């Protein structure tokens, strides 16, 4: 048993180190940064030092000091702890809001690109209408109907965000469809599902993967923006955008309340963008950030 295990483990570890070794610097730095953020979010209760809602009225609006690394807010809550706990929420929402729509968006786009004809016409019609609205306006409009809150943010993002992935996957699939290996798969009589999922998609998915890293950043910006506007996560829940909104009224007395959660957003976004940059190089795709 152990005899069989050791070589395979060794092969695995060498292949992992070879893979990591081939990464670009930006991919390495981005992954390390994101790992750091994720780990500190996971172990937030151990690292934080204070509870996210612990109020100390003897230490209100304190500057960053040694006992309060990033200062305290108007209720004497430790900002460092709240930023850490906020990371849990923002990363979770960002991840779900990015990758759930990505899955069915890519599938719909691939189907439309492969089938063409009526399916494609219908999908493109829906895409064109959805893309005519500014993203935030559409989300705010849906939230106006459903009411604010995390759950409704999920619903509205799920309704809207798949369109970009569908567009990317459709364009790639239309290129792949005419290639010889796809014709070969058709000639062999494979079912359509297998042709799309096993043959077409692996070659039509890299632009969506690269875009998903930018989309992750955009979704974190979206959630914090909506919370800032009072349409998302409601205080006192520690969320970066909501914290910035709370600090807005104390901008002049205590700049650190606003600044610190924003820096957390920038740090996370930078890590993800660096990963996107590196992935684009690794997969031979172009990285435009948006578009």
């Amino acid at each position, binding site marked *: 048993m152990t005899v069989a295990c050791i070589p395979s483990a060794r092969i695995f570890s060498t292949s992992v180190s070879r893979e990591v070794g081939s990464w670009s610097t930006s991919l390495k730095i981005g992954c390390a940064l994101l790992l750091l953020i994720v780990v500190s979010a996971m172990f937030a209760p151990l690292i934080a030092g204070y509870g996210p809602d612990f109020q100390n009225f003897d230490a209100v609006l304190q500057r960053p000091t040694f006992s309060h690394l990033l200062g305290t807010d108007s209720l004497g809550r430790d900002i460092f702890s709240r930023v850490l706990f906020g990371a849990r929420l923002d990363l979770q929402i960002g991840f779900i809001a990015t990758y759930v729509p990505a899955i069915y968006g890519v599938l719909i786009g691939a189907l439309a690109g492969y089938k063409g004809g009526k399916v494609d016409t219908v999908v493109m019609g829906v895409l064109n209408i959805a893309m005519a609205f500014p993203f935030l306006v559409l989300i705010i409009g849906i939230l106006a109907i459903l009411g604010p809150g995390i759950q409704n943010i999920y619903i509205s993002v799920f309704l809207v965000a798949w369109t970009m992935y569908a567009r990317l996957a459709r364009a790639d699939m239309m290129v792949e469809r005419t290639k010889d290996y796809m014709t070969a798969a058709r000639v062999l009589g494979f079912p359509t599902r297998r042709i799309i999922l096993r043959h077409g998609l692996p070659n039509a998915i890299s632009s969506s993967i690269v875009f998903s890293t930018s989309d992750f950043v955009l979704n974190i910006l979206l959630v914090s*923006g909506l919370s800032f506007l009072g349409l998302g996560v409601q205080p006192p829940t520690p969320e970066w955008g909501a914290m910035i909104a709370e600090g807005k009224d104390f901008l002049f007395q205590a700049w650190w309340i606003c600044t610190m959660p924003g820096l957390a957003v920038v740090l996370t976004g*930078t890590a993800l963008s660096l990963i996107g940059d590196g992935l684009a190089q690794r997969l031979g795709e172009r990285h435009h950030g948006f578009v």
Partner: protein
Amino acid sequence: MLQRKVMIYLQYAIKRVLHSVPVILGVTLFVFFGIQCVPGDPIRIMTRGRITDAAVAGIYAHLGMNRPLPIQYFDFLRKAVAGNLGESIIQHAPVTMLIGEKFWPSIWLLGTGTLFSAILAIPLALLSAYYRDRLIDHAIRLVSIFGFAMPSFWVGLLLILSIGIYLGWLPISGFGDDFISHVRHLILPGLTISLFLAPILVQSLRSSMLDVLTADHVEVARAKGLSEWHILLRHVLPNALIPTITVLAVNISWLLSGAVIVEYVFSLPGLGSLLIHSVGYRDYPLIQGLSLVFAILVVAVNLLADLSYMLVDPRVRKSNP
């Protein structure tokens, strides 16, 4: 010959305009039926339930809301074409009038933001392409990654704090009364917009310039012994600017999204802050009208970009007759 060219252009233009008609129709459908999804009975909510069933039915009949939905939709469409988008529930004024008041500040803000972005992005992209894959290029790309990751409302607050309050150079909210004060009020919001728009412009300009750098006419220019700066400025930049117009047009929806938040932060009386306030009051006719105007704005900008693109680049004409 010229006449023929004009004819071909007009043909293309008409075709392109006709293409956007179904999109606009779809948008109106979406906006109309979106409002129907609002849970609850608006009349009962507004009167807090202190009303008889007969009275509710009477109000609905008076508003024409007891008719079949398709007929209501065509009625909505007919009125919308005539410029009547209903009446705001909270402000008791026609929606078109309220939107008309806030339209120009928003357009000014978008213009300022785009202008600042271009001023920031073009030199940076030139530097980045000139020093490609060297230290300056990497530094510029890192800075644009930072810019991309910054929440615009946060940047706006920091600018208010530093330039508005600490230095006291510029006003931090409102839109002012005359032209000079309009301009002064637009600088900080415009700067905030450019800080998230410019990174995207830099990235796309850089990559399209690198594309153009491999073209034949650049080789010829090099063979003539022209300096690299001259080639970039005279032979590469003009060709790279064309795709940038498209990038700007595609990003108009994102630019508008950003402008909504920026307007709110700087209390600029534009469409975005109107939208956010009307969401707060659940003023559905106003939300409906605003969504429609935003969508038409996006479609119109894309249309204009395509038409101007075609005017500049004859290759598009040939491929899309």
